[in-house]
């Protein structure tokens, strides 16, 4: 201790020296508890203050004071862990990193906001835990012989929270509103298959002719071509019912002052600070809703949320897709108490590397296969603490049509080198991998890929860019050769993966969702046939065949299917994850 004070020695009086050595003795010879040590240090300081008033303050005392503070803080543990630090009893308290952009179902389009929209609005059909569509606002529905007309029969006992009963006209209005260009709905593309949708969007028709309401409890939707997954589009929150009078009254601000028919209503929303949803007394199944309110803190990252969770201030550690922060994941899973409260759900999502099949050297199928063989997926998954299932194809295991027999690509650097030689690149090549700079997962994947490919002679330069830049650049034809990607389903149908991401007919010059610019005529034909088929078994067979061809052509490096982990407090009940709606607040309650 005195050694560290070195040059200042001459400034200390003999008395101070004696006192410091006293502390040193007590530190080394007597086994003191932290608290008594702190007490001794404090008493030394107060002694010095009383007896040395006239002389200058002592630097050594400052150091002692710092030590005292350190010991004090070190001796206090977060003992609030097992107690709920929230004044309100049956109120769920969660935190989100930033404000939802809008609570308007026509606008909201992300995994954090959708569970909130579900608590405020009501839709025609919903999913059960096995991903079957079940009646919700619709009592029943039927599909015509030709597969082009869907008829919904609606319940008559449900009202908006403003008291007005909901009729079929409200659902017709809500669908038309999505298609109205002035609404600027990001979901409009899902509903363009309705007859008259394009004419309405282009302004040549006042109404969408394919939306018909013969009476107040019947809604008919006529489609341009048969489309089985269209029912899934109807189950998306975009299509939830909104009351015309409130939308017209609020205009662009409807997303700030939403009125729906869900189990909760919006009670308060201070932008950037907090949001509060309260149980709606007029909800038709109000007796099934056990929470009084949902209180959201807005702001902070997952690390802060984890601290608040461990102090008992939050009921769920994080409601984003991250679930448990990377840095805490292993500790949580090893903790016998915490790990009991982890809920886990494989997501209908995939993490992949896209290789631009139009740009050399990735226009050569053997190069793409070689890259697939050269990358050790197992290591990548272990880098994300095993929070993923190794991918052997495009469709995740929870998706209808998942093919267990797909073999995919084994990690085999020797074979990768052979394939590279066959492709005319015996010495490898140099390429650039675009990743999202803010994403920790992307960085890990990037580095692992860089090392693996270096082993077979391919030099990869990592190019980190912001999320928006990556999306823009990769969607532009002939621009990005190699990029990381993640895809999360819109609805549980293979078309949402294969058609959207790998159908050559979907390639556009800019904003292409087919970022590999993969165009195989046979695959396109299979996908197009499947999308207009009305026989589900046949569709799934066609999709499996298309997926087999795609895996063989290897436009992607199929990495892994992510899993979601949620950490809850022991007093939070009713948390049951669902692959479509990971979180369903309306089913939860607090039980101290």
């Amino acid at each position, binding site marked *: 201790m005195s050694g560290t004070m070195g040059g200042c020695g001459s400034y200390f009086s003999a008395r101070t020296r004696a006192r410091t050595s006293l502390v040193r003795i007590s530190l080394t010879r007597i086994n003191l508890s932290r608290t008594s040590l702190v007490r001794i240090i404090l008493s030394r300081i107060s002694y010095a203050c009383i007896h040395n008033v006239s002389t200058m*303050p002592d630097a050594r005392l400052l150091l002692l004071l710092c030590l005292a503070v350190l010991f004090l803080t070190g001796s206090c543990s977060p003992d609030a862990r097992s107690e709920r630090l929230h004044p309100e009893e049956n109120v769920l308290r969660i935190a989100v990193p930033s404000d939802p952009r809008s609570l308007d179902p026509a606008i909201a389009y992300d995994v954090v906001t959708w569970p909130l929209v579900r608590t405020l609005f009501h839709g025609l059909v919903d999913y059960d835990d096995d991903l079957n569509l079940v009646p919700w606002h619709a009592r029943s529905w039927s599909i015509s012989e030709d597969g082009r007309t869907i008829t919904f029969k609606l319940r008559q006992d449900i009202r908006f929270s403003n008291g007005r009963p909901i009729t079929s006209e409200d659902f017709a209005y809500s669908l038309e509103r999505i298609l109205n260009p002035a609404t600027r709905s990001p979901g409009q593309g899902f509903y363009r298959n309705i007859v008259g949708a394009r004419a309405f969007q282009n302004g040549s028709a006042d109404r969408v002719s394919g939306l018909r309401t013969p009476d107040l409890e019947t809604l008919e939707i006529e489609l341009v071509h048969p489309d089985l997954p269209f029912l899934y589009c109807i189950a998306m929150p975009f299509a939830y019912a909104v009351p015309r009078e409130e939308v017209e009254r609020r205009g662009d601000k409807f997303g700030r002052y939403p009125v729906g028919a869900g189990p909760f209503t919006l009670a308060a929303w201070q932008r950037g*600070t907090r949001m509060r949803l309260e149980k709606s007394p007029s909800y038709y199944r109000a007796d099934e809703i056990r929470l009084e309110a949902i209180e959201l803190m807005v702001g*902070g990252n997952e690390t802060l949320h984890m601290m608040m969770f461990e102090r008992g201030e939050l009921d769920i550690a994080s409601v984003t897709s991250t679930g448990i922060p990377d840095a805490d994941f292993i500790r949580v899973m090893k903790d016998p108490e915490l790990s009991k409260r982890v809920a886990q759900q494989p997501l209908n999502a995939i993490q992949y590397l896209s290789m631009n099949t139009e740009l050399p050297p990735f226009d050569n199928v053997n190069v793409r296969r070689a890259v697939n063989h050269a990358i050790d997926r197992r290591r990548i998954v272990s880098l994300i603490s095993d929070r993923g299932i190794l991918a052997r194809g495009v469709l995740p295991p929870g998706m209808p049509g998942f093919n267990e027999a797909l073999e995919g690509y084994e990690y085999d650097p020797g074979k990768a080198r052979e394939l590279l030689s066959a492709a005319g690149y015996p010495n490898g090549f140099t390429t650039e991998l675009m990743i999202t700079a803010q994403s920790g997962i992307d960085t890990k994947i990037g580095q692992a890929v860089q090392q693996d490919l270096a082993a077979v002679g391919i030099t990869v330069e990592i190019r980190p860019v912001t999320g928006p830049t990556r999306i823009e650049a990769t969607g532009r034809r002939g621009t990005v050769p190699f990029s990381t990607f993640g895809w999360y389903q819109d609805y549980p149908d293979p078309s949402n993966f294969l058609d959207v991401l790998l159908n050559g007919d979907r390639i556009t010059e800019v904003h292409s969702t087919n970022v590999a610019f993969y165009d195989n005529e046979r695959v396109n034909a299979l996908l197009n046939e499947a999308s207009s088929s009305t026989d589900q078994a046949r569709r799934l067979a066609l999709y499996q065949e298309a997926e087999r061809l795609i895996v063989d052509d290897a436009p992607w490096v199929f990495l892994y299917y992510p899993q979601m982990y949620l950490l809850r407090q022991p007093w939070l009940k009713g948390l049951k994850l669902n692959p479509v709606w990971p979180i369903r607040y309306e089913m939860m309650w607090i039980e101290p």
Partner: protein
Amino acid sequence: MLSRILRRLGWAAVVLWGTTVITFLIVHAVPADPVRVYAGANADAETIERIRSELGFDNPLAVQYGRYVGNLLRGDLGTSLVTGERVLDAILIRFPVTFSLALTAVCLWMLMSVPLGVLTAKYRGRAIDRTVLIVSLVAISLPVFWLARMLQYYLAYRTGVFPVGGFAGWTHIILPAATLALVITGYYARLVHTNMVEVLNADYVRVARAKGIPEYVVLFKHGLRNAVIPVITILGLDMAALMGGVVFTENVFALPGLGVLALQSVFNLDVPMIMGVVLFSAAMVVCANIVVDFVYMWIDPRVEGV
């Protein structure tokens, strides 16, 4: 005097106009598409183009800029692409948080740095002076986000003395303000120290001492009052810079201030919001400059205006 004020205001307008041009160009030079961000990664090309034309982003840049300035002159900073909030509302809602954070921090660091500066000037070269110098150097070199996390971990998470984060009252301001204050105190302590040493060597101080005036009166009445004038100038500018949002501190503690707003709008490529926040911060600095200049002229008549 009036013409001087008018000239200053004219230059301020030019600076702000320049800010809008530069920000506008930078935001549009970024190789990313705000409409794509708005529509989400899953949207198809047709949806994106329809939304683009609804938002007016398909017009030439000059037209977009003209429209922006036109709206600006009417006091309309536009609407956020991401949250749909009016930009001016978003800024004004968050401003009080940033303002109270900055003000608390300033009070804290002045309360610490002025006595330290005076004390170290009085005992120049002694142990207290050297210790404060070393501690100051260390404090100035600390990264703000690291110090913020440390304070958050020990004083909030471990002990629960302060809230970990979020904003629900004045207690939420203390730790963030302390973070800022600890880092900046060292700098101001040296500033006060240097000015004090100079002043204490001045003839009038020697005269005051010779007359037998008590030391504390010499220090605080004759010394500090004169030593603190340049400090106030710098303080004004620092305060203005803090008003623009304290990005790291606000983000670590999840304070809903301008710093968080700025960072989020950059990540989301929320063009109107980025423009608004930058313009607002620029306006703050310009105003503070004008105010400081005039206050300085008023305090010290020897200073001639530009």
